[in-house]
């Protein structure tokens, strides 16, 4: 049979083997490419077009359809269009205040141009319900979240049977870090859990409402995957206790988002978690997550063999090509070998969608991007 891109990805997520490993590139906000690396890739492929922006704050490109076709990419993103440029206001080239009132700072004269939150409306002092209620909340019905999505989906549908990924427009703990400051919010989870949960509940409400608007515009039947997530791991372990802090305070909030959006669409759930996600995977399976991204195999306990053996029948893996050591610093031949290894291990009996661990970074040479995708494109099951 001939497999369409959508069928290919969904088969993999159902732990079945399609014709070849499915490929993602920019189906999510965590599987795209830094603008500079994209421009070099474009030149290398001798393709000429204006580079489209996916995220100004993360300095990410939205690859052109010609690049996606060249690589045989199976996914296409549905994203809040008004957020690409940020949706807030720029105070200067390196200072941006977003729609939640969070200030992001960039750095001058450096290769990596992505921005990081530095101040927010709940920074400092004690976190209280009053402060949470009094801060200016963005409107989840803001047309900037959904205008143009209907046309975007129609364009995708007219050009092929792609796997469409709805990117939930915001986050919960990461947004709380930005509003409150990471260190203070982590302490709030212990010292002031009821108020921390109140903040998270309001953020869950915002995300669900904003996503509902996007789903309505896209047409619920057109959404194949819901992409949502936030980092629970560090390079060497867990950000917080997976069996107490996560289970009692955060997991129920993640569950509400995932279950609500899955039930509205019938889509699969793809969860993003950088670092060592190992100790969270059973919890994520519990709340209905079908696939894990970006599978940071260089973090503790994240070796492909271990993950596939322990979770492979219950969790699919999405990402996995080594961004910290191989893609930026090794040859195209080494990239091919490493990609083959990941397909062989993660892709056994389906359960694998190929992409780099996270967005392709600044220093990754175009030859290595091509090598990774061509290895995937040439792969055949059976």
């Amino acid at each position: 049979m001939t497999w369409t891109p959508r069928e290919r990805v969904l088969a993999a997520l159902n732990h079945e083997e399609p014709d070849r490993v499915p490929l993602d590139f920019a189906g999510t906000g965590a599987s795209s490419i830094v603008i500079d690396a994209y421009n070099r890739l474009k030149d290398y492929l001798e393709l000429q077009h204006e580079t489209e922006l996916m995220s100004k704050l993360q300095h990410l490109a939205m690859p052109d359809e010609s690049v996606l076709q060249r690589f045989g990419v199976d996914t296409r993103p549905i994203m809040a269009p008004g957020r690409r440029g940020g949706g807030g206001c720029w105070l200067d080239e390196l200072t941006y205040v977003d729609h939640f009132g969070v200030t992001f700072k960039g750095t001058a004269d450096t290769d990596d141009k992505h921005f990081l939150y530095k101040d927010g409306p709940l920074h400092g002092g004690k976190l209280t319900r009053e402060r949470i209620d009094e801060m200016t909340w963005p409107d989840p019905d803001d047309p900037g979240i959904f205008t143009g999505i209907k046309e975007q989906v129609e364009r995708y549908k007219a050009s092929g049977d792609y796997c469409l990924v709805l990117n939930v427009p915001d986050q919960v703990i990461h947004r709380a870090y930005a509003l409150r400051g990471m260190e203070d919010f982590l302490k709030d989870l212990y010292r002031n859990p009821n108020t921390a949960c109140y903040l998270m509940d309001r953020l869950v409400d915002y995300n669900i409402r904003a996503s509902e608007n996007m789903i309505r515009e896209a047409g619920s039947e057109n959404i194949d995957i819901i992409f949502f997530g936030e980092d629970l791991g560090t390079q060497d372990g867990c950000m917080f206790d997976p069996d107490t802090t996560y289970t009692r305070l955060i997991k129920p909030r993640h569950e509400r988002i995932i279950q609500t959006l899955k039930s509205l669409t019938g889509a699969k759930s793809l969860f993003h978690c950088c670092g060592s996600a190992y100790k969270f995977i059973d919890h994520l399976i519990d709340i209905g997550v079908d696939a894990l991204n970006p599978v940071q195999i260089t973090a503790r306990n994240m070796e492909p063999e271990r993950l596939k053996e322990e979770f492979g029948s219950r969790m699919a893996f999405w990402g996995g090509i080594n961004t910290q050591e191989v893609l930026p610093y090794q040859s195209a031949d080494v990239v091919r070998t490493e990609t083959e290894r990941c397909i062989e291990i993660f892709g056994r009996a389906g359960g694998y969608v190929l992409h780099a661990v996270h967005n392709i970074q600044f220093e990754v040479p175009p030859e290595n991007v091509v090598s990774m995708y061509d290895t995937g494109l040439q792969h055949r099951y059976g």
Partner: protein
Amino acid sequence: MTVQNVYDAVLAYDEEEVVKLVTAELETGTEPEKILQEGMVAALDTVGQGFSEGTLFVPEMLMAAEAVKAGLEILRPILANLGAKPHGTVVIGTVKGDLHDIGKNLVAMLLEGAGFRIVDLGTDVDTELFIDTAQKEKADIIAISGLLTTSMMEIDKAVRAVREANKTRNMNIKVMVGGPPVNQEFATKIGANGYSEDAPGAVEQARDFIAN
């Protein structure tokens, strides 16, 4: 009441209790150095060990370090009056171009809790500023971190510059590196004196430098 209570209060992440108990210990005539070492440094080492073993996590480290910091506010002037010197001075920051600082902050807090004097230069720090500050503050150690893969090049440049400055400015500053993309192999390759995969390990490294 004993110094053990101070230790327990740090492990209960109870800043107010630590302040109360440290004050009470001083009033009963307990040696300040004993309160510091057996009450606070020992407790922070226990938390660090739990962190390295994966039984305690980032929030617990933050809270324990803050409890120790509160106790240090009381002890530090007393220790200084008694002529006690800090165990060493560490100039710390994230490398040029990198704003990710929670790992750096944890290392700084643990080092401070372990009795080091910390000069925290924050994030996105120019190499020259690391070196000039270290010289001015008569530092023993420069500690540099980064999260981004692009920071590896900057860390490499910074370490080389510190080694060069040691020769040209007649200094003997050790440089230690850390952060998610950094590993021992990389640290060795670029000639860093020390590397650790986590914050408690960084404290061990710093102690070794001073001891030797």
